């Protein structure tokens, strides 16, 4: 009688041992991301008062390299940690917030969930747009495996004499798709040196890195926070090119050689980004 139960217990444990997958080295998978034409948009929601944000910024940059350049990064400074004079500290005088960034932050709920976090092509995972850095790679990976549904071509003409940019955005879809699609065009800037809270000594000084280099900082959009329709017919046609040119005079704080034009096309109904592109303002 008792022996029977002991056998039962041993059997169950034996079965449990089978529920183990021991992984042998090498543990790192090498996946080739260089074959493909889809680019993924990584929006890194950040703020100069957020101690963990430099780590997320490094991760975004690493992912761009791992993805063979098939990632477009926007650092969106918004929410509590991005406030100028953060915690009444004049060291954090800089204001990197933007109207569009604030609106996106409110809509997608990023800063309310605690920075750093981000959006990956603005896809929803587990009922939430907000994706924490540790999940960025696994959310981006399947998106990069699919062929691009659209291509964006950016042509810039920057007039140095009057600090004015004229940028031409062409969007070409790879199939007929029903739905409303919009393009957002924005400016990002690299190499802005300004204090940043930081808790990772491998990245920079802690707890405040006063010479931190902010990259991909969203400076503003050229066509509103939510962009403009590429087509008003409720559908887009394969191989048809939708084109528009935008002009903007750069404020003095926008250093043209450090700036990029970023454009991305998205489905208005679910906000998901189909394709993103970026190019230096001076290219």
């Amino acid at each position, binding site marked *: *009688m*008792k022996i029977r*139960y002991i056998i*039962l*217990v041993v059997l*169950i*444990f034996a079965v*449990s*041992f089978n*529920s*183990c*997958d*021991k*992984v042998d*080295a*090498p*543990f*790192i*998978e090498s*996946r080739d991301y260089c074959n493909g034409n889809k680019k993924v948009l990584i929006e890194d929601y950040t703020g100069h008062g957020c*101690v963990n944000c430099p780590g997320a910024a490094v991760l975004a940059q690493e992912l761009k390299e*791992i993805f063979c350049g098939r990632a477009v990064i926007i650092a969106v400074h918004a929410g*509590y940690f991005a*406030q100028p004079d953060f*915690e*009444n500290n004049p060291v954090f005088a800089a204001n990197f917030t933007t109207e569009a960034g604030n609106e996106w932050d409110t809509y997608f709920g990023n800063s*309310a*969930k*605690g920075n750093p976090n981000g959006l990956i092509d603005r896809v929803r*995972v*587990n*009922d*939430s747009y907000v994706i*924490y850095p*540790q*999940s960025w*790679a*696994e959310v*981006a*990976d399947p998106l990069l495996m699919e062929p691009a549904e659209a291509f964006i071509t950016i042509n810039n003409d920057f007039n140095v004499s009057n600090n004015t940019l004229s940028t031409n955005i062409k969007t070409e879809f790879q199939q007929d798709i029903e739905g409303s699609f919009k393009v957002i065009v924005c400016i990002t800037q690299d190499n802005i040196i300004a204090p940043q809270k*930081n*808790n*990772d*000594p491998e990245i920079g000084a*802690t*707890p405040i890195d006063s010479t931190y280099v902010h990259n991909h900082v969203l400076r503003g959009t050229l066509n509103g926070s939510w962009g403009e329709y590429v087509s008003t017919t409720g559908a887009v046609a394969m191989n048809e090119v939708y084109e528009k040119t935008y002009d903007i005079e750069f404020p003095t704080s926008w250093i043209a050689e450090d700036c990029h034009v970023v454009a991305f096309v998205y489905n208005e109904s679910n906000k998901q980004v189909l394709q993103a592109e970026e190019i230096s303002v001076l290219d």
Partner: protein
Amino acid sequence: MKKALALIVLSFLFTPMVKAQGFLSKSEVHGNFELDGMYYQADDALGITDSIINGNEFGFNGFADIIYTLGNFSAGLRYEAYLPPIAGFDRNLDGQGIANLWASYTTDRFSITIGDFYEQFGNGLTLRTYTEWSLGYDNALKGARFVFSPIDGIILKGVYGVQRYFWTKYENNNRGIVKGFDAEINLNDVFNGMSDSKIKLTLGGSAVSKYQSDQNPFYKMPKNVAAFAGRFNLGINKFNFSSEYAYKINDPSAINNYIYKPGAAFIFSGSYSTKGLGIYAQFKRVDNMSYKSDQAVTSNALDINFLPPLIEAHTYMLAAMYPYATQPNGEIGFQIAINYKVPKKSKIGGKYGMGVSINYSQMNNIDRSAPNDTAYIGQSGTMGWNSDFFKFGKQIFNRDLTIEIDKKFNKKFKSTFKYIYQKYDIATIQGHTGEPIVNANIAIIDMTYKLTSKKALRWELQGLWTKEDKGDWAAALIEYTVSPHWFITIADQYNYGNKHSNEKIHYYTGSFGYTLNTMRIALTYGRQREGVVCVGGVCRQVPASNGFSLTISGSF
């Protein structure tokens, strides 16, 4: 699942086969609830401006558990609302609804539960699901549980399900599936010859496995990660010894920075107790033992196992300033506690005797060396590190010496004196990077004076002295109680030793409460200092705030 459960519950409620009278007389409904509301206001001294509050003036956390029983059958639900969550709680809690729903049938020999349930195997090293309201923590398993006791002294348990992750529904393997089995045998009950033995022995073992699909593009992830544990509890006269060892196979995760080292945890405790004297000692070692049902999650959620703390848990205001949070990636330490009751009518004990307790605990980092010649310690995609099992690392996370004396002077007057020394690695435990280790001395006097049989006055005086962090603090509290209904408390914590004159802040609070049978209502106004609150080594941040808080709780 929820629909199926509702149908079961409804069928029991309305089935015409049941005779209404007997049904009603045998049915019982019990429950408990708590509503916590906060109203926030701006406070310049705390750096809280209207623009920071930004219209979010209210926070509300509430729950109600309702349990229905009819003979061997019971069913229950738990409603929760966080509208929005009180500051410091995980924002993912935002929302409301039926968080848990379950039905259970239990006899002397077996019990089956479907829906959400809480379970613990042994000390929890391989599996523990629980809810802790003050942390906003709930890792309930949703699925099925079977408990079977074939004969007295043997308990077999099996669980299968997925864990709660805030309000996110399980779908498409968006988190792991957990299955577990536990067996416990009490030899004194099983073998007749041992039933009267002075040696009491219980043995137990558990196996838990989680399945999660490989969603990580960079690392080869094990889809099935299993953990095993063995344990015993041995009582010999006034001595008691218990131990548990757990082992987990490779489980790369965001918590351990995707290393492939197997995990291990070991606890051993021994105690001796006799009239007036209790001695307790415990040793603990944890090495890479975070075990979650989603390898990408780093927040306080989806823990399959639990690593019991061994540091004295302090409740006095200033003593709770530096609470220890369990370090699942590695910690090694011990605790020794001695409780002695100085006899009544002795020279020191006086008429009523005197309680003395001394508690010393220390927790270090484990000793680590690089896993091989080409990798650094903790490098992702490697075995992580090598570590000698019993070797203490040089880094001290926490050291705590607490000496407490309880003394009753006469029928009306009693007091508690407490001295605490703490060493606290605030950079590691609270993430205050670059800040030096805190050395703090804390003294507490707690006195109660009974004015009448129902009215009592209690007051506390506390001091915390440290050169690090925010410097010295003083605190005082006075509480007037009219039992069994009323209490009123006024307290202040003053950071008089802060290096920055604008941060020498009084954190004052005033509260009063009313209790009627099992219902309690309490209203508090004042400042909350920034800090960390921990329960069982699991912690959450508490931001500074100013405002009103209202708590209503009860059971029926």
